[in-house]
């Protein structure tokens, strides 16, 4: 079975989207003074940011560069 070819740019967009979402959650958790704010940060914010980092690192390994990038 052939895996679908995914460009590095798509990976970066997904990664940055996840990181931005996670960071917005982190800001909310910092401004919200409540016991659940810690849970929100750890189980939503940190996981989203962590996933974003993993997707970025995965892009370095598995993504296919565009022909323009290969020429560069």
């Amino acid at each position, binding site marked *: 079975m052939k895996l679908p070819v995914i460009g*590095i*740019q*798509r990976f*970066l*967009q997904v*990664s*940055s*989207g996840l*990181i*931005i979402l*996670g*960071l*917005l959650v*982190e*800001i909310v*958790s*910092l*401004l919200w*003074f*409540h*016991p*659940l*704010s*810690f*849970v929100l*940060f*750890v189980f939503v*914010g*940190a996981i989203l*940011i*962590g996933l*974003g*980092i993993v997707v*970025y*690192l995965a892009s370095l390994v598995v993504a296919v560069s565009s022909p*323009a*990038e290969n020429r*560069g």
Partner: protein
Amino acid sequence: MTGPTGVLVALIVLTIVLAAVFLLRSSITGGITGKILAFVALCILPALCIDVGMSAHMQRSEQTRFCVSCHSMENYGKSLYVDDPKAIPAQHFQNHRVPPDMACYACHTDYTIYGPMKDKLKGMTRIYMQYVSTPPNPITIPGGFKNAQCLHCHAGARAFEENPVHTAIMSSLTANQLSCVSSGCHDTVHNASEVGHLKMWRPGQ
């Protein structure tokens, strides 16, 4: 919003701005500068935000007002204002024998390098009880209150060491065989269920 939290929020905003560049124009990774920027914006800075954010949350959860923000802890917070010279937590809080803004944390950690993290993990079970299950009534400390929490400050203190009652049972106290808060000793602790009927101390009056 000032201090460390303000710096952290500034760091988060910077990371969001840089990450947004790659969301909108991911083609800039074509050059070496873009690749380095991507590594910083999508790996280094976000990891830093998690690390500093965790520290900020940890420090914030050490504050008294954080502990008493939980509904189950409201009466325990009120018990710090009980006007009773025998009430151990109230006397420590009112006379600043512990930092008032960190009063709960001062007496309810194990004071080891892993103490705070271990306590936070225990705290997760309290959050589960508060929002999913039902908090026990009365609330008890698993394993009981350890004398080490008292001895952390009192051991070596002259008034404590020279007290003949303490001297006679010192080995039992240090071995945690006899609790400092056992009946007949310092047994007036958080009388949370009675705070509505007790005389309260009002600061500044």
